[in-house]
């Protein structure tokens, strides 16, 4: 390490600026963020951009078999003769929407429960953790069916169901972090001077647990997207005829051998979106963690 550095005077940097600079150093994260923004844009304007209606059936073109890519159908068609490019775009939109809203739901519940349990301890911790256990023990499939039964089996019930399935991990992680942080000097000090609990949690503890929360959020969005795709693959997710990357894969199973692009395209799309979220999450974590800065 060098000894004394004469540092030229520069403008004072804001907190946000520092984080942004750190993030920019992580090239893959930046690239992924750009990709995600592009994807979001494409998804929002999918119907305008796509040359064909994603649900329009063209059996005279397909004759029951998926058709290979041509100039008119850049990604070919599925066995119903529907434009695969249009369906992929619409599918990505759906996956993004479901992923993000389901996780938002999970975070709100998970952070609240985890923070309260970790900070207050005692019977509150016990009660909340037992509630967490209850949600963990009820079989996921059962929970999903109930949601479908009560909420009607559409998109909303899917989002609530995925949300209800995974908040427990967030809760436990936040609780674990808070449990460790609770005994630190600044917390003990704050308590002793009478800082109210909510302020303790929101202003002091959660930001320190932020790294944990962000990492789990960025792992949760992909997880939600993957769960939705698995459910749609099984026929329990997004109802037809709307395309979701998952139900496209469900229909594509039989064509892996003869029309392999039908299987590859949605899988690569899902992987791409999820990978992008993961890189961004990594970049954010590196940028936000004060102790990792040099």
């Amino acid at each position: 390490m060098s000894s004394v550095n004469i540092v030229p005077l520069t403008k004072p940097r804001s907190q946000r600026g520092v984080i942004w600079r750190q993030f920019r150093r992580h090239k893959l994260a930046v690239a992924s963020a750009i990709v995600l923004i592009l994807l979001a844009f494409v998804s929002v304007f999918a119907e305008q951009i796509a040359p064909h209606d994603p649900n329009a059936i063209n059996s005279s073109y397909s004759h029951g078999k998926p058709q290979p890519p041509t100039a008119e159908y850049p990604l070919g068609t599925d066995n119903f003769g529907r434009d695969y490019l249009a369906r992929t775009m619409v599918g990505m939109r759906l996956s993004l929407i479901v992923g993000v809203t389901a996780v938002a739901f999970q975070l709100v519940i998970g952070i609240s429960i985890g923070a309260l349990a970790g900070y207050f301890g005692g019977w509150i911790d016990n009660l909340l953790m037992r509630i967490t256990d209850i949600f963990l023990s009820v079989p996921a499939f059962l929970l999903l069916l109930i949601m479908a039964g009560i909420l009607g089996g559409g998109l909303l019930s899917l989002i609530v169901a995925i949300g209800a399935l995974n908040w427990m991990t967030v809760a436990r992680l936040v609780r674990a972090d808070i449990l460790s942080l609770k005994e630190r000097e600044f917390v003990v000090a704050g308590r002793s001077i009478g800082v109210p609990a909510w302020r303790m949690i929101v202003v002091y503890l959660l930001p320190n647990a932020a790294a944990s929360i962000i990492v789990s959020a960025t792992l949760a969005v992909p997880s939600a997207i993957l769960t939705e795709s698995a459910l749609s693959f099984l026929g329990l997710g997004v109802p037809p005829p709307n395309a979701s990357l998952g139900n496209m894969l469900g229909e594509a199973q039989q064509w892996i051998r003869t029309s392999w692009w039908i299987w590859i395209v949605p899988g690569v799309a899902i992987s791409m979106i999820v990978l992008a979220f993961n890189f961004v999450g990594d970049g954010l974590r590196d940028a936000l963690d004060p102790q990792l800065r040099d």
Partner: protein
Amino acid sequence: MSRYLARRLLQAIPLLLVISLLTFAIIEIAPGDAAQMYIDPNKGTDPAYIERVRLSLGLEQPVYVRYLGWLKETLSGDLGFSFRTRRPVALEVGDRLPNTLLLSGVSLILSFVIAIPIGVISALKRYTLLDYVLSTAALAGISVPIFWVALLLIQVFAIQLGWLPASGMSNVRESYTGWLANLDILRHMILPTVTLSLAQIAGWSRYQRSALLEVLGQDYIRTAQGKGLRERRVLLVHALRNSLIPMVTLIGVSVPTVVTGAFLTETIFSWPGIGRLGVDAVTGRDYPVIMAVTMLSALMIVVGNLLADIAYAWVDPRIRYE
């Protein structure tokens, strides 16, 4: 600590009771019942026959009578009979539990054994080529849908190359015995285990890496770095121990799934496990089986949580339980 343990175990009892009530209630609320599974939609089954089936299954009784009946039977050790197959639930679960334990257990151990070292190496060799390669591979591993990978694996290794079986737990054409039979099962386990472990290994190694990095970034480590090699080594070991806290969470959460199985993988590979049994039971509203599988899962969670919390205290001496 022992007081804490005793309290937790005692609390487990009302917890399990609540879970059983909740599950029972959920099955009630869900539309349909087990008698309807005897309907053949192709032929228009006589509704009177379905009513008779309903009576024979005891479904006409009010829900609290059935719940109390179930509770009494279960506490005396009788798990009842499956509505779908009329075989004892104990047999249905007992036949399949070893299969699931085998598959999920081996995947869990494999994932742990591979993920921790990968995560540690990534963290220690941060920003080197090795780190980038490992991290990207891990990211790719958790980004691909497992059923997508599974079917690709089957297509390549089972159908095109013919090296590994596409389905089932054993080869029915030949009846192997002894160690050949075990080898046969092992062979059938390869693809499903790879499928199950892929995402786990990738995810866990990332967690391990980030957890270790966080610990390494703390002040006492920097101090040690400044002080010299031996102090640094001792503290690295300490750091490693601390970094295991989130890992313990992850594993604690994963233990119950070893028992409840992985439905998707079991279906694709036709593996005769609890995962499939549970889902089939839910689809068929077979509540004796649903209850048995749920209570088993709940028991595993209680045990898993307890072990995880004890492990926290052992790993991080700052955490105290009264």
